[in-house]
């Protein structure tokens, strides 16, 4: 097996069931992530990108109404088959998690330093004072000035950007080889967002951790990611290196997203994608994008297009792009 391979997700499915219906939030998802690589997972709300992260962290799948299937090999071991106890040792240790809202990932009644020190105390059985010095080191690493005083302060004394830095420090305290960041900058202002993204790239360069970055913002993807997977209605519809995706998008949905994005300095009229995303519980056969697709034809109604390799490292789930390949 490839040594660089950090995460190998195969046919991941996550369904939510109720009496009347089943919501296929993530449906047959496969992707890989290498060491030191930043993979962007983009899509609109409800496309299953956050459910993917929750499934990988096994935060769902434990209840009767939740259904999880597939394989997710992390450093050679299948996360989906792990017991709860085994997962507890991995979460926060080998896999760090950065959530969207830094306020809700920090405990208001413990000092920031304490919360970071908890990570080495839990996972490496570090003594209290050693854990504290690790916490200080982490705060320094994420660029919090005056970190010794700051470590003794509480979350409400931190501003939004500082809180997100603290959350990143916490995620890094276990020295993770995989970092999952779910919309890490969505709650922040642009100038602060630029600082945090810069920090994440810098930390990736230092630690060589793999980063799975969930975002809805194609601009963020273009700035920091190496590779991109575009999700639509629970499936990956296109996957490619960042330059390739932005310059030669193949799937009509990716093309639509790029055309509907306002660009500074461009006078071109935006071309929106018509309609709205499908309900995940009322899915009919065939391609899920067909109703909104300007190029849809008969085959799209009946046959679901598989994720097709169209070039080295470039895959697209569209009948048109596979047809074009066959005609060559």
């Amino acid at each position: 097996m490839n040594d660089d391979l950090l995460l190998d997700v195969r046919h991941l499915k996550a369904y939510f069931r109720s009496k009347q219906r089943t919501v296929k939030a993530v449906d047959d998802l496969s992707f890989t992530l290498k060491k030191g690589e930043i993979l962007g997972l983009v899509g609109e709300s409800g496309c299953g990108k956050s459910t993917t992260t929750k499934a990988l962290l096994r935060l769902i799948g434990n209840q009767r109404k939740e259904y999880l299937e597939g394989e997710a090999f992390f450093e050679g071991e299948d996360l989906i088959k792990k017991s709860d106890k085994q997962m507890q040792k991995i979460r926060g240790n080998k896999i760090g998690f950065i959530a969207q809202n830094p306020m809700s990932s920090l405990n208001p009644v413990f000092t920031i330093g304490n919360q970071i020190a908890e990570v080495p105390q839990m996972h490496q059985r570090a003594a209290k004072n050693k854990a504290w010095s690790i916490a200080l080191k982490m705060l320094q690493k994420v660029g919090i000035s005056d970190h010794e005083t700051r470590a003794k302060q509480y979350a409400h004394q931190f501003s939004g950007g500082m809180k997100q830095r603290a959350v990143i420090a916490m995620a890094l305290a276990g020295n993770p080889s995989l970092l999952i960041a779910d919309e890490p900058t969505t709650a922040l202002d642009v100038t602060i967002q630029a600082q945090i993204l810069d920090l994440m790239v810098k930390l990736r360069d230092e630690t060589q951790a793999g980063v799975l970055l969930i975002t809805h913002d194609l601009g963020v993807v273009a700035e920091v990611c190496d590779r991109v997977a575009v999700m639509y209605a629970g499936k990956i519809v296109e996957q490619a290196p960042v330059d390739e995706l932005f310059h030669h998008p193949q799937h009509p949905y990716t093309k639509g997203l790029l055309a509907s994005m306002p660009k500074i300095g461009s006078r071109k009229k935006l071309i929106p994608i018509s309609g709205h995303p499908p309900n995940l519980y009322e899915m009919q056969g065939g391609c899920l994008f067909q109703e909104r697709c300007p190029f849809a034809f008969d085959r799209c109604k009946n046959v679901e297009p598989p994720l097709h390799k169209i070039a080295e490292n470039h895959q697209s789930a569209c009948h048109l792009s596979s047809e074009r390949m066959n005609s060559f």
Partner: protein
Amino acid sequence: MNRDYKPFIRVDHLKKYFPVAKNWRGKNSQYVKAVDDVSFSIDKGETLGLVGESGCGKSTTGRLLLHLLTPTSGSLFFDGQDLTQLSKQALWQKRREMQFIFQDPYAALNPRMTIQDSLHEPLKAYGEDKRTRSETIKTLIDAVGIPSQYLNRYPHEFSGGQLQRIGIARSLALKPKFVVADEPVAALDMSIQAQILNLMKELQHAFNYTYLFISHDLSVIDYMSDRIGVMYLGKMVELTDRDALYQEPLHPYTQALLSAIPIAEPQRSKNKIMLKGEIPSPVHPPSGCHFRTRCPFAKAICAEKEPEWVEMKKGHYVACHVVQEAHQ
């Protein structure tokens, strides 16, 4: 230019202070200067964009313009009349011509009223009879692209994009002349965002609306506006045409803001102006120029004196000591 030329909307030295603390006598002792000495004008049929980070006072400015908040001082001319001097009754009549489009379409519509009833409400308030109301609503709902058979549905039966269309229809029901749109697309997905932006442009074209368009997203502002004002901590720091703002931004904050925006263009040079630190608290803003604590060009004078609002070139206003010195 015509000497007695009167802009459609003129704002002079507008201020709004909110009390945040009281002293032991129960008198207000501390204030947030949400909007602090802002002056600008808007021509008929024009779109003025207001951009800035959270807490810069852009929403407060929007609310002040419709006189939803009473300004602490300053004057506000709408169509030649000073709104601050009008009686309650006269203001109520004037309000017919000014409307608001809200950020969150879910919160803006009453969940217990069908959208038909919600749309009838503003027209009823201004005493339109039932038949004209129904007719107006039919044309409106048609103009925003909602099928008229949906009129008897409740808000929860619609998607976010559809609700925003309905919200826009309601704002336009009274045929206003001036519309303040406060982050109308911030809650929407990318593909839906483009639909709404295009709709707002088409409606403006058809009915010659004047917009004040508020957003934190510079690329959205750039797409929508004729002129753009940049705000920072209650002050307007730069105001000019959208082309000039993009091609030669003068104020260091505008430059940093433009460079901080993630652009969906992977090979763009990544020479960013990274701002240090975070936005200071508006209760205790820095002395002199509010931006000096984060400004890469700050000098001694910036801490001592507030920069004046000066027209550097025709129609290009800047408040910055450094820029003004360089020009002399």
